[in-house]
């Protein structure tokens, strides 16, 4: 039996406050993307500093945060990039983390920045794949040390939706995450839907991956739905969680003794399609999962 029940929550977007008002008891945790709470004038002239906060959105989020736990979920730092870490953004993130009292902070194990600019991700819709080699590991480890010093909370990295994996890497993605946990103290944010994306596109085996990942490292799970585009399956956050992803969640989550939160991700442009009732229904299923995970004991890897 674990000593705490994982929290159930949502990835923040402009319509999440209305979901919280509709179903306040179903949302215990909110993943906050700092990049959506400021205007970044890195490539433009601004009055004052580089980051100008979207104060209305921050105030609304602060209201929603009462009685709930918040965590940070960043995009812009692009830790795997072979570039120095963006210290101005680290400082802006740390200031927001203090103000909103982030309990932990996650980033993506994907690349969004290159030396000559950035890859447009539209909230992580496209992150470039990472070379799972020693060289990349050392780059990320160094940046995690900086981040830890500024944020002073636990750090996690999330497996991305990969369409074209870098071939012949020195480590598998799961081994890379395991090493980040054992050698750099960085936990795993396990996006089960991203594994589903990999399976649908024929680039990874989720069951092998889930057997390989160190269960102690997993502290947060993401659920989501996607859709097909030109014969491929994408991580568009456009629908409810597919049944197969729920099966993995029920089968493997009891092993994750350090699991703190289960989060549903949807993009606000699909809010009308999903509807308040649809999202509330997903949250109810997540509460049932959290209950099952809390009461389950694990024997030889199987839930009983």
């Amino acid at each position, binding site marked *: 039996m674990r000593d705490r029940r994982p929290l159930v929550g949502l990835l923040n977007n402009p319509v999440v406050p209305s979901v919280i008002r509709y179903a306040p008891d179903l949302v215990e945790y909110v993943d906050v993307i700092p990049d959506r709470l400021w*205007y970044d004038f890195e*490539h433009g002239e601004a009055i004052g500093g580089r980051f100008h906060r979207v104060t209305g959105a921050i105030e609304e989020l602060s209201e929603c945060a009462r009685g709930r736990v918040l965590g940070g979920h960043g995009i812009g730092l692009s830790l795997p990039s072979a570039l120095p870490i963006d210290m101005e953004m680290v400082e802006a993130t740390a200031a927001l983390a203090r103000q909103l009292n982030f309990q932990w902070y996650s980033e993506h194990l994907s690349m969004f920045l290159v030396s000559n600019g950035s890859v447009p991700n539209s909230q992580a819709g496209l992150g*470039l794949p990472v070379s799972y080699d020693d060289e990349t590991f050392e780059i990320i480890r160094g940046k995690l040390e900086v981040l830890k010093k500024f944020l002073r909370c636990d750090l996690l990295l999330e497996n991305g939706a990969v369409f074209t994996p870098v*071939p012949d890497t020195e480590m598998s993605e799961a081994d890379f995450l395991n090493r980040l946990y054992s050698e750099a103290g960085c936990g795993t944010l396990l996006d089960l839907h991203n594994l589903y994306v990999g399976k649908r596109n024929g680039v990874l085996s989720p069951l092998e991956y889930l057997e390989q990942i160190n269960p102690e490292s997993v502290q947060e799970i993401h659920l989501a739905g996607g859709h097909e585009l030109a014969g*491929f399956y994408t991580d568009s956050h456009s629908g409810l969680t597919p049944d197969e992803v729920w099966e993995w969640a029920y089968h493997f989550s009891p092993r994750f003794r350090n699991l703190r939160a289960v989060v549903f991700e949807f993009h606000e442009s699909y809010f009308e399609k999903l509807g308040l009732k649809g999202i509330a229904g997903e949250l109810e299923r997540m509460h049932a999962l959290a209950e099952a995970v809390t009461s389950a004991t694990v024997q030889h890897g199987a839930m009983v």
Partner: protein
Amino acid sequence: MLVEFQQALADLVASPDFCRQVRLSPPLLHERYVLSEREHERLVKIVNHKAMALNCMLYRANRLAPLAMNLHEFCTLLGPRLGPLLSEYAVLYPNTNVHFYLECDRFCKFVLTKLSDGYELEREARVVLEKEHSRIQLGLMASYTAL
């Protein structure tokens, strides 16, 4: 060099035309970037991966997203003319601006420059462009002074 490998990968994702060139002539990568043999081989395999087309589509969709959200009526009025305009814009400005108002303001100015250079657009589309550009500039002005 990893930094060059990452840049090459980003450049490929941004340009289906560059992908085609590399598929036809892989040594092109060595001409443009400082790469180890392993990095070169990896890029050649990636560019020949069937899902590279998806990467390119998502790149383009994500370049379009801020414009479609903030200049919705103008994009709708452009119809099939939007695709070629977006391609030209993406080549001229290969880097996205994460501040959506700046990105949209830049796109509007790009179209306005084309108009002054003789690009033809019906009156209704010009009026909508002016209206939506004004709205973007107001939003931009507000974001300049937000604390």
